[in-house]
């Protein structure tokens, strides 16, 4: 063999060796990533599953089923309004036992309900920071689907929405592709530290996507429910409209209505004013308005900064309580309408 051809042989052999080893190493990396992801989800699940419970609520003719979780070690539970509706009686399943839970309060507008079981030293899930969530952030969901034992699911944040079809949420919700089966609503969405950052409140697209209420919003309502028995939503009486609603991204928001018998009337605001800040919050789009309203405290005054004729003006408005329809405490479901959509899966009894 000539020196050149020997060199080529060694070169090819060397390259072949390198690629084989690299290939194996790469395969090894792929396996490691999947294992480490499962490992993380497992860890979060193991850490928190004990604090997530099955909830059953009883309306006159119907049992409602869903999930909830402890938020302190005295048996206080957070869940979604849809899990209890207007029922007066509820039970949770804790350590294999059915335990009665008192419904402290519920709020239809935000979709939150607060329960309390007479238990001490309950495991609970600490709250994470829901303000710093980002698109594609990972979330672990934990809940009880149907009659199945508690199970985890995993997904990523796909968006932050305040608009759904033709309607608005009361505040920005987190949208994620965590699969949610019937019964898992009310369960927590957790970050990588095992802290709850949102509560599953609404599943869409056949359970393929889910909306979560950020924990900061849920806790704000829970605090009201604890203190007053009902949520007190702030209200000032200013209707706004968005410039260019059909285009994406940030739009100016203008005052277009001042409702009768509200602090908005005679406060100095005028139609056409562009709202640029409410309190400390900058207003860049309608989402910001709704969030500002959601976290406003009833009884306090809030400075509203606007631009009018290229001048910046500030008006102080007192926040009153948003009027709410008073419904009778129990709303029994009379009977199934002749052709409704049933929520139960179709049960088939196959021959033995």
């Amino acid at each position, binding site marked *: 063999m000539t020196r050149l051809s020997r060199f080529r042989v060694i070169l090819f052999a060397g390259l072949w060796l390198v690629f084989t080893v690299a290939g194996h190493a790469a395969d090894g990396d792929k396996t490691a990533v999947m294992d480490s992801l499962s490992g993380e989800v497992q860890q979060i699940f193991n850490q928190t599953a004990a604090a997530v419970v099955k909830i059953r609520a009883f309306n006159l003719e119907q049992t409602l089923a869903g999930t909830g979780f402890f938020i302190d070690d005295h048996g206080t539970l957070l869940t979604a309004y849809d899990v209890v*509706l*207007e029922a007066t009686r509820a039970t949770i399943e804790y350590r294999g036992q059915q335990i009665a839970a008192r419904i402290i309060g519920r709020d*239809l*507008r935000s979709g939150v309900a607060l329960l309390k079981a007479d238990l001490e030293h309950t495991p609970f899930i600490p709250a994470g920071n829901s303000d710093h969530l980002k698109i594609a952030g990972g979330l672990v969901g934990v809940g009880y689907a149907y009659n199945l034992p508690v199970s985890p699911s995993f997904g990523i944040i796909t968006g932050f929405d305040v608009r759904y079809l033709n*309607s608005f949420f009361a505040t920005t919700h987190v949208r994620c592709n965590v699969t949610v089966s019937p019964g898992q609503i009310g369960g927590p969405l957790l970050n990588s530290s095992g802290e709850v950052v949102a509560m599953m409140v609404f599943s869409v697209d056949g359970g393929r996507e889910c909306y979560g209420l950020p924990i900061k919003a849920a806790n704000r309502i829970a605090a009201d429910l604890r203190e007053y028995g009902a949520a007190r939503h702030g209200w000032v009486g200013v209707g706004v409209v968005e410039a260019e609603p059909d285009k994406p991204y940030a739009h100016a928001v203008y005052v277009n209505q001042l409702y*009768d*018998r509200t602090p908005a009337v005679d406060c100095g605001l005028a139609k056409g004013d562009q709202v640029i800040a409410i309190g400390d919050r900058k207003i860049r789009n309608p989402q910001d308005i709704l969030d500002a309203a959601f976290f406003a405290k009833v009884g306090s005054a809030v400075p509203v900064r606007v631009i009018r004729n290229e001048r910046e003006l500030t008006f102080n408005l007192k926040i009153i309580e948003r*009027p*709410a*329809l008073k*419904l009778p405490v129990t*709303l029994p*479901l*009379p*009977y*199934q*309408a*002749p*052709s*409704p*959509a*049933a*929520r139960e899966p179709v049960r088939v009894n196959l021959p033995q």
Partner: protein
Amino acid sequence: MAEQTFRPGEPQIPDEALVDQVLQGEVSAYDWLVLRYQERLYAVIYHMTANHEDTNDLLMETFDKAFRRLSSYKKNSSFYTWIYRIALNHTVNHLNRGRKRRYDLSLNELSVDEATEQEFADLSAVTGAQAAARVELQNKLNESLKNLSESQRAAVVLFDIEGMGHAEIAKIMHCSEGTVRSRLHYAHRYLQKALASWLNK
């Protein structure tokens, strides 16, 4: 279709959205529709029948009927028009079947508040009738209303008492605006004559 206006203190869910929820199985959403329309439908039925017992039964039957027929509600007309039509038709059918009770409610037994007192006082001054006779005047009006045909009475109830426009009434009663106007015209003429002759007795 006119924009639905919501009363203060009411959750701003349009009727059609509530109907959708009921049809998807959320039956309790229907309760919100009952609460929203109970006073208005009561008024229509009561002024057609002038009888509280019958009105109570007919109102429940109306809501029940509407509930059963919810899946046939087409959104080309407003829910408001649709349910008013059910209420009116159901009431008229009842009246035609002649199942009236003997018991008639006179004004004394209804809640008369300060506003009523003031309006009555003005009216007494205007017609020159004595204070004691004002209740009788109202009773005479109720009687005369009963002498109208069902469609004339319905037109008066919807226009003069409930304050609806000719177009809305035409949709509810499934007729032309011209028909509504002529029914009102004849009804007013009859009522004026009946009350005038009674007053001049």
